[in-house]
């Protein structure tokens, strides 16, 4: 992070800046003036000096500010002179701008201010449209205005060329007075200034909004400030419905102003097209009767200070609702407040006039946590000149200015002095009615002062009954003379910041070895990231007012030094010594064994605009008290340049699942809450291997935190994703069934069978692990090598055209010429990969002739158009054809599965449906088959049988329920349609019905492969009445056959309760099934 600057003005009007990388206030040396106010942004700092003029300090940057002036020289041809500057009367001027509408002779160009300089003289631009022209840079045309070419033709009657001159802004890293010739119309000098608006628009570059308030309470807007015109061009008055005393403008479109009466104005209509906004809205002061004296706004925050120095935070402010919704009182007593970058807050304390930083301001906690005093010393440069000052001090005459001697007084006496001073300050000065304790050059009193004659300027100190300080004021002024030159300036200083003078009078006796007294701070250019530790706070030079963690501790200034507090500190450290020092070799009761795995990942951001953002990902695991491990997942991300994090307790994670995504290796993490919101945490790892590592690790820690070890129980719910990963979910003893992931497959009476893509049956061995679990400390018994072979198919598509016949040149609207079955995804021979790295190719691409519908001899299938039904012979109406290529791949992985010798078991559920009579654990093969007719016209694809109910799914995704099935009449009587868009069904032994459904409303779109559970299944009502939608996306198969828990106790983590009817799932073509023959 590059360092940036915090600006502040002390009560003497000296401007200091503090770098985020630095540890001391740097005096802005070339300022021979005293300043009243500063407002900083990253590239510059604006200020109002005590001479009422506005000054600008532009930071030097590597890119100079330069501006190209241009003008055009125009000529016309006549037969006598050829091309000459003698133009027709109707023509443009001989020198004009590009449009010809404005007369622009070279000599008319003036530097906008004395802060600019010409880089060189005028020269001719010999390039035209990026190409060099003939000598002289002339471009030709028939007439003005017309198209110009660089070539002279026979009919070229006019020509023109461009002259260029660069000017450069020279006044960088110095204070320059903003020329005031255009401000002559101003009836009164400026009194407050605020700069912001750089986030509103990027065009033109560096565009800023600068607002100012004049002593008479009028508001002015500086036009046209941008990178090329850092000074802006002209002041425009913005009408206000009252007298404004102070204004604040945020980086975005927030502009708030304080009215003399203490109410606030909010500017509306500020936007890209109108930096000035359109109208004002009034907002009441937070506490009735006590007006606001100061306001500060950021991007989404507004802070205010009332006359009683209370600090207020405005809730609910954003660019749609610039007025916010309500005030919240904050701790601390401040005299002014300022909001900087990332809504960080700076303030000046009322008691000590120190600069405070609001700690813990983040995008989620905009009000921050605590005030922390910025306690860094000022640079020592000025103290060299104050030898006399110290001698004066030694003579007992306290005196302003830098005192080099370290304070010899003890801390305690310092504190006493401070307390005394605090006591003295509460003496009210009734003459200044509205501001009994003016501590800063506050606008209200300034204005009063200014209307009075300068001679009465010091009246506050007189009337305040603090006459003895009079002489000090004189001394201070004398010293100002010494250090700041002309006496007139100094006099003006005091008259303008009369209240500051009043302060000096009071505070003089404490010398400047004390922390500096500040009058104004501006953090608009200061970038503080919330996790970086600034080294501004730990400085030992601070007095008792040190940092404090807690918000409530700020007000304890006297308390910090109180005897009781000291005594508690002492006793606590004594106690620790007494009770622990000699016993450190004892074992700790709570083990702090923590280990952390970290990595980088991308995270699909939870809020709009959704996008992948780079995050740091960390899993912190620790041993719980009873020996069970637990963990927390942290996701560290950056938002608005602020580092933040999300966390998730491992014991709340319900599902971990890899998500199909072509470009990224993504997986999703669900908790009960996130399932309800249909919004899992989505993460993407850099490589597939990394993703599997993380999934395995997370999965193991999920199991650990639930105390789950060993093989899944008989009650588990099993499911298969589209990728073929097998998950098992164990209903825990708690009310909620928490599906947790471990790999495995398909259960029936305690024996788990899986069927591979090559129709080999596998039996679960009761082990656990394997696959991406390799190398983890899980049970490695019963893990066997598994192999599986399947074909990957791609399609070659062609379209007929009259010239060349069938070619691979399709229409622009056509599918890819090499695609998957649906045509939506491009799949060439080269880019098609095996389903996961565990699969390897075992053959080359071959044409597949065994395609449903038949092919011709070259494997082509023909159709009238994509997509349509294909047939194996070419007809006259066919304009497209496709053929299928297949390539075999083989999976070799490990898992708790053992190959079963080939038995004729595969696809027992294939149409036409047969009911297997009397299947039992003893006689798993059954003894006979009954033929049951399918529902009309539908080919059944899958069947699942519970204790008393039979469900089937047909090829079009309809779910059917078989009526009339009884133990004695297992065939049943008739089919009833339950739902469509169902991919798979599984009926448990208690007749629980779980399906994988498509087209369920997900978090942001219809999702495919959502797990749903049938609600309302009762013994007398085995059909149930509605669906409960669970986790979405990517599931391919589920089985609940082993789940024998009482139905009402199984509650999915996401209950969308009381859906009274079957949610009508829209009818549409079932996407082509991927031929997974797993069934039960």
């Amino acid at each position, binding site marked *: 992070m590059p360092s940036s600057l915090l600006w502040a003005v002390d009560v003497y009007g000296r401007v200091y800046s503090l770098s985020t990388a630095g540890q001391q206030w740097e005096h802005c040396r070339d300022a021979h003036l005293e300043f009243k106010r500063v407002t900083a942004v990253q590239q510059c700092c604006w200020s109002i000096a005590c001479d009422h003029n506005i000054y600008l300090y532009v930071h030097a940057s590597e890119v100079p500010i330069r501006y190209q002036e241009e003008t055009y020289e125009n000529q016309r041809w006549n037969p006598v002179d050829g091309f000459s500057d003698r133009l027709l009367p109707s023509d443009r001027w001989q020198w004009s701008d590009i449009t010809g509408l404005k007369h622009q002779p070279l000599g008319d160009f003036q530097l906008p201010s004395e802060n600019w300089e010409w880089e060189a003289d005028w020269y001719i631009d010999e390039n035209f449209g990026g190409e060099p022209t003939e000598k002289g840079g002339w471009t030709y045309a028939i007439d003005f205005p017309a198209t110009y070419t660089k070539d002279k033709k026979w009919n070229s009657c006019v020509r023109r060329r461009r002259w260029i001159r660069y000017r450069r802004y020279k006044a960088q890293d110095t204070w320059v007075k903003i020329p005031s010739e255009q401000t002559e119309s101003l009836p009164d000098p400026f009194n407050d200034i605020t700069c912001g608006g750089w986030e509103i628009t990027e065009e033109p570059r560096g565009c800023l909004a600068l607002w100012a308030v004049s002593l008479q309470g009028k508001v002015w807007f500086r036009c046209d400030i941008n990178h090329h015109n850092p000074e802006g061009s002209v002041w425009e008055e913005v009408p206000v419905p009252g007298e404004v005393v102070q204004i604040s403008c945020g980086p975005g479109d927030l502009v708030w102003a304080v009215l003399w009466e203490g109410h606030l104005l909010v500017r509306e209509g500020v936007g890209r097209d109108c930096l000035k906004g359109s109208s004002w809205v009034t907002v009441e002061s937070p506490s009735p009767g006590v007006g606001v004296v100061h306001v500060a706004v950021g991007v989404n925050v507004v802070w205010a200070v009332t006359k009683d120095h209370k600090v207020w935070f405005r809730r609910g402010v954003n660019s749609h609702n610039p007025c916010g919704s309500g005030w919240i009182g904050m701790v601390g007593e401040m005299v002014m407040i300022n909001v900087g970058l990332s809504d960080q807050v700076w303030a000046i304390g009322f008691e000590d006039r120190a600069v405070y930083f609001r700690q813990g301001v983040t995008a989620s906690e905009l009000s921050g946590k605590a005030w922390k005093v910025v306690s860094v010393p000022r640079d020592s440069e000025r103290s060299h000149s104050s030898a006399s000052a110290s001698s004066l001090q030694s003579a007992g005459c306290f005196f302003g200015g830098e005192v080099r001697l370290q304070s010899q007084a003890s801390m305690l006496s310092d504190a006493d002095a401070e307390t005394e001073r605090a006591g003295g300050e509460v003496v009210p000065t009734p003459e200044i009615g509205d501001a009994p304790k003016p501590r800063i050059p506050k606008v209200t009193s300034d204005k009063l002062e200014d209307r009075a004659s300068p001679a009465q300027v010091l009246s506050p100190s007189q009337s305040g009954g603090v006459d003895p300080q009079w002489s000090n004021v004189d001394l201070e002024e004398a010293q100002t003379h010494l250090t700041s030159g002309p006496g007139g300036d100094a006099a003006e200083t005091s008259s303008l910041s009369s209240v500051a003078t009043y302060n000096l009078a009071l505070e003089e006796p404490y010398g400047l070895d004390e922390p500096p007294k500040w009058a104004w701070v501006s953090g608009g250019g200061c970038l503080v990231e919330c996790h970086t530790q600034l080294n501004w706070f730990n400085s030992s030079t601070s007095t008792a007012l040190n940092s404090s963690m807690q918000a409530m501790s700020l007000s*304890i200034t006297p308390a910090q030094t*109180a005897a*009781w507090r000291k005594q508690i500190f002492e006793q*606590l450290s004594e106690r620790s010594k007494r009770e622990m020092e000699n016993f450190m070799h004892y074992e700790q009761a709570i083990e702090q064994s923590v280990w952390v795995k970290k990595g980088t990942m991308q995270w699909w951001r939870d809020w709009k605009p959704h996008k992948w953002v780079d995050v740091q990902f960390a899993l912190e695991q620790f041993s719980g008290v009873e020996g069970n491990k*637990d963990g927390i997942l942290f996701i560290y991300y950056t938002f608005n340049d602020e580092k933040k994090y999300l966390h998730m*307790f491992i014991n709340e994670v319900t599902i971990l699942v890899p998500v199909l995504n072509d470009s990224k290796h993504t997986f999703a993490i669900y908790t009960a809450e996130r399932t309800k919101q249909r919004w899992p945490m989505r993460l993407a790892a850099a490589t597939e291997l990394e993703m599997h590592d993380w999934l395995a690790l997370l999965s193991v820690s999920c199991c650990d935190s639930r105390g789950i070890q060993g093989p899944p129980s008989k009650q588990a719910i099993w499911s298969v994703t589209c990728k073929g990963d097998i998950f098992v979910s164990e209903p825990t003893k708690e009310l909620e069934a928490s599906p947790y992931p471990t790999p495995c497959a398909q259960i029936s009476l305690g024996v788990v069978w899986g069927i591979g893509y090559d129709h080999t049956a596998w039996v679960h061995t009761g082990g656990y692990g394997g696959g991406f679990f390799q190398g983890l400390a899980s049970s490695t018994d019963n893990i066997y090598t598994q192999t599986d072979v399947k074909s990957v198919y791609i399609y070659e598509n062609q379209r007929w055209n009259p010239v060349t016949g069938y070619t691979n040149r399709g229409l622009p609207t056509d599918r890819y010429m090499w695609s998957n079955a649906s045509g939506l995804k491009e799949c060439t021979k080269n880019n098609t990969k095996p389903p996961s790295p565990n699969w390897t190719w075992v053959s080359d691409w071959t044409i597949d002739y065994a395609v449903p519908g038949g092919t011709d001899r070259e494997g082509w299938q023909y159709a009238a158009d994509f997509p349509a039904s294909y047939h194996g012979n070419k007809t006259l109406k066919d304009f497209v054809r496709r053929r299928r290529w297949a390539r075999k791949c083989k999976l070799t992985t490990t898992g708790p599965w053992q190959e079963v010798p080939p038995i004729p078991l595969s696809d027992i559920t294939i149409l036409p449906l047969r009911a297997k009579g009397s299947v039992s654990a003893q006689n798993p093969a059954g003894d006979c088959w009954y033929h049951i007719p399918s529902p009309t016209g539908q080919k059944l694809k899958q069947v699942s049988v519970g204790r008393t109910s039979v469900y089937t799914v047909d090829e079009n995704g309809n779910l059917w329920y078989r009526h009339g099935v009884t133990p004695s009449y297992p065939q049943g009587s008739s089919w009833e349609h339950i739902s469509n868009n169902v991919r798979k069904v599984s009926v448990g032994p208690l007749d629980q019905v779980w399906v994988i459904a498509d087209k369920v409303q997900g978090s942001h779109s219809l999702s495919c492969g959502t797990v749903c559970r049938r609600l309302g299944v009762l013994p007398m009502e085995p059909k149930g009445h509605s669906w409960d939608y669970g986790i979405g996306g990517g599931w391919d198969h589920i089985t609940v056959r082993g789940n024998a828990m009482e139905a009402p106790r199984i509650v999915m983590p996401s209950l969308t309760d009381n859906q009274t009817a079957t949610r009508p799932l829209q009818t549409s073509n079932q996407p082509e099934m991927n031929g997974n023959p797993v069934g039960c």
Partner: protein
Amino acid sequence: MADDKDVLRDVWFGRIPACFTLSPEETTEREAEPYYLLLPRVSYLTLVTDKVKKHFLRVMKAEDSTEMWFEYEGTPLKWHYPIGVLFDLHASNTALPWNVTVHFKNFPEHDLLHCTSNSVIEAHFMSCIKEADALKHKGQVINDMQKKDHKQLWMGLQNDKFDQFWAMNRKLMEYPTDEGGFRYIPFRMYQTMGERPFIQKLFRPVSPEGHTLTLGDLLKELFPAAICAEDEPKRFQVMIHGIEPLLETPIQWLSEHLSHPDNFLHISIIPAPSD
């Protein structure tokens, strides 16, 4: 000058060295070695003594392994008081380590609550926090928290995670600025000899006239005997976390900084040592 945050840390990380010995009444298969442990002052006995239990069960017969309970010099130790309170109340001014006797038999049903699992402790802890917040903020803060925030408080205590705990507990310690403190201070005042287990009353941090009330004000109202005149000998010690804060300490500050994780300020009043 130290930071107030350091007070919170000191309080949290306070440890009492303890020596656990098996009661001679217990029958063992072989002799039981004493077991030494550093106990967190702010935690609960049954929450941090799994190791002790494991240690002694090794020498016990399996059929005797019933619920474990603790006793100090004849007094059964109530697990639902924080460890620091038990120590201050019964064993302050004694030599360290703290000798605690471990029992498995004869559970004193009249004196102790059963603690069958950590969820019992969790329930007790959370109910204390809720009670404290009811006093401080009419329960609004704790009720606004989510279940997982509650969990975070408990997990923080259980796993001795200061930052995790205080990230959440901080919210429980806030109060409206204009009121100068909580609605009522959640405190409990313990005595060894009292007929009641502890004194608990409604007490505001600020007097109706707007004065900040102190520990002395609290004692004056509830236990005037603890305040002695200048010339009298001290009769009682007022202990919080093993220290004796001055009587002029504001009660609000004490509540914010010296409360136990259950958000109560546990004050032990013990007779002053005679020497």
